[in-house]
């Protein structure tokens, strides 16, 4: 039975954050704590011949590859990123070592005085060295031989994107007895834990990771903290004093991981009536210097490449390329924003070619309940996309506006994107890789405590996960204790990523709480360890990219209205309307927070946020040069949810974190196309690019 949630609750962390009591990593004070500053490579590719250190004052240390305790590798999905560059340099800014000492200012001065001799080699900045290739097809291939079909090809590009979490990356490490203890700004406590154990060769019980307050992440704190953890733990083993490393904004923008830039080529075979009979999609991702998580990002990009549509035949392939640039990694959407942008623009362009107005053309390809997915899995759960579309059209007065703005020199446009997001880890990752286990226990006073490894970095999951347990048990809120993750207390329920927190961990928490309720004996200490059991229909073959890629899908429609200034080529986003199917909304206000923030970040990705790479270095390194939308740029936003409970989620909930990001960029670009009556092939569609299109 689903509880009714007409009202939203106060977030459990409101008071501590509004009052300033919450302690973020840099707020944590410790006696005798040392600072660490990174020595970074100044070249993009080459060999280190010699490192000449300045004379280090007493109490100052240089930690580098020679200090590695066991293995010089940072544990990320594909572990090719060294903790410290040893001989080879693969990107500009790569960590060569740390200067550690009491005074951060002296550490910075010492870093400036380190002289490194290199043997420089020719760096590769273009996508030409493929490290990972994936390829799969679906449907009846015989259509390829039909001589009556016309071929139509387009290419799309997307740029870097910076996460711009409010709190920069930071970490504090210290010894508690002989135990390495870590407090950091993070998303995934057990990723850091594993990375430290691996580089030191330590058993699990010799490392402890505790989460303090975290100010935003967006995927940017999924993998990079593992590198910082491995580096600082190495230093701690040698120095044995507390060490803190907190990045300044400029260092954070310059050297931490970004969204993968992409190039997607789509070719269609189209019949005389304009119907696509076959589709070939190739997605290229720029992985940067190390593979890390890029293979998984590529998988998601490819699985999402046909978005919410079905075609008679599709061939999907992609490559992740190694280049001598800052490694790309996780960012809200994880590959799907790139490929969904491409297919949405492609279908809008084919519609124009055959003179279909608005979304009429793409509506003929919508997937329905029971259809196969791009990987020959099955959309088992009820799809209500058509209801979302009807609602979004109605809210935005889409049909009237679409017609009106299509007139010449309207300088106004309306765009509509459809999108889905597979919730949880790809394929059988939840059951085979993560294997989440959740502890819930009750003391003799009937006070219930439960533990997850989910980080609340502002998105509100501490509130929602607690609510799931409170409501399942039907006991007062103050009888349930749910604190931030601590690897000494919790078993891993997996990373805070992949829109899995509510659908997977929430479902697990509800199940554990229900089991506790079933065996509840008042006044008795009781404990349940609940393992994750995935839906038994999930079968996935990563090698062939065939099967059910995700346990469930969340769906969305964004409508964006823009005006355009033909004198300055500036776009003003006037208003947005969004309708989502995230299963059942547990707390609508928290969801609206995700929805408003998600679409604004997606709009920024689509028309505003420029991060250019020149000679292996970002050109925009500060908040005044890397332009994110301010509240003045935020349009009026309207958001609605249509209830469609999901059997396996907590109280019917699916994922919402990434979904709300995905549709902003294509919707705003389709709207801009209508305003300027020209086609867009790349994002961000900033004024400089729009001028280039209009003045060509």
């Amino acid at each position, binding site marked *: 039975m689903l509880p009714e949630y007409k009202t939203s609750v106060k977030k459990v962390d409101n008071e501590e954050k509004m009052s300033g009591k919450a302690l973020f990593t*840099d707020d944590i004070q410790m006696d005798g704590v040392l600072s660490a*500053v990174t020595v970074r490579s100044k070249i993009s590719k080459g060999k280190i011949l010699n490192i000449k250190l300045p004379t280090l004052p007493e109490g100052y240390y240089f930690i580098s590859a020679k200090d590695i305790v066991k293995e010089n590798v940072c544990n990320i999905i594909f572990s090719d990123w060294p903790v410290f560059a040893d001989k080879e340099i693969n990107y500009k800014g790569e960590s060569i070592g740390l200067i550690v000492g009491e005074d*951060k*200012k002296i550490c*910075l001065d010492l870093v400036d005085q380190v002289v490194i001799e290199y043997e420089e080699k020719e760096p590769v900045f273009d996508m030409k060295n493929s490290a990972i290739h994936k390829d799969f097809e679906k449907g009846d291939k015989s259509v390829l031989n039909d001589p009556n079909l016309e071929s139509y090809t387009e290419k799309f590009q997307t740029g870097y994107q910076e996460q711009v979490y409010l709190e*920069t990356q930071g970490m504090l490490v210290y010894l508690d007895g002989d135990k390495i203890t870590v407090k950091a700004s993070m998303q995934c406590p057990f990723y850091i834990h594993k990375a430290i154990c691996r580089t030191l060769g330590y058993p699990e019980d010799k490392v402890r990771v505790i989460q303090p307050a975290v100010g935003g992440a967006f995927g940017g704190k999924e993998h990079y903290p593992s590198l910082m953890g491995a580096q600082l733990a190495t230093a701690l083993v040698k120095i044995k004093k507390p060490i803190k490393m*907190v*990045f*300044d*904004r400029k*260092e954070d923008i310059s050297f931490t991981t970004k969204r993968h830039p992409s190039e997607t080529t789509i070719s269609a075979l189209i019949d005389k009536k304009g119907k696509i009979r076959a589709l070939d999609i190739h997605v290229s991702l720029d992985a940067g210097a190390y593979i890390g998580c890029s293979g998984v990002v590529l998988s998601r990009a490819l699985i999402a490449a046909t978005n919410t549509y079905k075609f008679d035949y599709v061939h999907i392939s992609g490559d992740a390329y190694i280049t001598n640039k800052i490694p790309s990694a996780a960012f809200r959407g994880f590959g799907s924003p790139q490929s969904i942008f491409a297919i949405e623009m492609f279908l809008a362009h084919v519609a124009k070619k055959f003179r279909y107005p608005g979304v009429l053309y793409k509506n003929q390809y919508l997937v329905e309940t029971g259809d196969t997915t791009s990987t020959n899995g099955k959309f088992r759960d009820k799809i209500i996309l058509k209801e979302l579309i009807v609602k979004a059209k109605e809210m935005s007065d889409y049909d009237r506006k679409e017609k009106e703005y299509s007139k010449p020199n309207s300088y106004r446009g309306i765009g509509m994107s459809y999108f889905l997001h597979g919730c949880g880890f790809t394929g059988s990752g939840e059951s085979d890789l993560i294997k989440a286990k959740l502890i819930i226990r009750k003391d003799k006073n009937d006070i219930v405590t439960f533990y997850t490894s989910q980080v609340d970095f502002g998105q509100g999951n501490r509130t929602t996960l607690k609510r799931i347990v409170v409501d399942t048990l039907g006991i007062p809120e103050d009888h349930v204790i749910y604190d931030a993750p601590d690897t000494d207390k919790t078993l891993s329920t997996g990373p805070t990523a992949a829109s899995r927190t509510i659908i997977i961990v929430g479902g697990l928490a509800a199940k554990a709480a229900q089991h506790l309720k079933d065996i509840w004996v008042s006044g008795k200490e009781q404990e349940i360890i609940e393992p994750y059991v995935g839906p038994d229909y999930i079968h996935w073959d990563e090698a062939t990219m065939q099967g059910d890629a995700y346990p469930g899908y969340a769906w969305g429609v964004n409508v964006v209205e823009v005006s355009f200034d033909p*004198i*300055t*080529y*500036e776009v003003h986003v006037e208003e947005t309307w969004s309708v989502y199917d995230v299963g059942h909304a547990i707390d609508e206000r928290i969801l609206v927070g995700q929805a408003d923030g998600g679409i604004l970040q997606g709009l920024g990705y689509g028309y*505003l946020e420029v991060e*250019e790479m020149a000679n292996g270095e970002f*050109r*925009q390194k500060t908040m*005044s*040069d890397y*332009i994110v*939308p*301010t*509240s*003045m*740029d935020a349009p009026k936003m309207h958001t609605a949810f249509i209830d469609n409970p999901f059997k396996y989620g907590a109280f019917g909930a699916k994922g919402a974190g990434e979904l709300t990001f995905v549709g902003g960029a294509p919707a705003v670009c389709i709207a801009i196309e209508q305003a300027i009556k020209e086609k867009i092939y790349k994002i961000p569609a*900033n*004024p*400089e690019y729009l*001028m*280039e299109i209009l*003045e060509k």
Partner: protein
Amino acid sequence: MNSYIPTSLEEALKILFEHDCYILAGGTDLMVQNHRSSGLLPTFKKDVLFTSQIEGLDYIKVINNELHIGANTKYISMIESKFVPTMLKNVFVEIASPSIRNMATLTGNINNASPAADGTVPLILLDARLVLQSKDNKREISVDDYLIGFKKTDRKPNEMVTEIIVPLTDHKYLWRKVGSRKAESISKVTFLGAYKTSNNKISDFRIALGCVSIKPVRSKQVESKYIGLTIDELKNKKDEIVNDYNQLIEPVTDQRSNKEYKRKVAINLLKSFIDSIK
């Protein structure tokens, strides 16, 4: 590095006579430019003189149809002042953010001498002047002459700007700041055009363009060619005017935009200004 916090102008000028100092008013440029890393104080390479406690430098008054602005006057005071003309206020309200406008001064904006400064564009258009004082001297110089290059001014180390004088006019004008977003935005192009008419003739015609050269671009020589024409004659010379300014501006590509965009938008704004004249 020493900090000086004088409370009188006399004391400040004495310090400047004896020490080479950064002069810090609101600090919104200097604190950022000398920022070292999070958790550390800024690192200044020479002594710093703080102007905030100097008495008698925070005022706005009108004398003989000229606006006199004390060097310590913050943007917010000018925006809220009844003496400051709308043209200036329209420029000032688009600078940075409320928190910056609560701290920053126009004097600081002039002395930072950035090609992307917004505040200097109307000053140059309005023939504004600065009063500079040193221990033994006091002089006046036009803002246009004071700005001598990229981040360079005519200030001598022992001098400080004590007042900005802006002649008050009743020009009709068009101001546009083109930034990369709607607030907290460093400009890509700024345009200020102003004119006066009498008996259907152009009696005054002024153009100032920001971000398209090492300092705001204004040419009295070019302007004088068009003063005295009828409105229609002026509009018929649109191509010639465009050509004149196309030669005067020299935008460069930077991390915020490119030179092609800056040139094109500057010229588009010039054209729309000419079209708006009536």
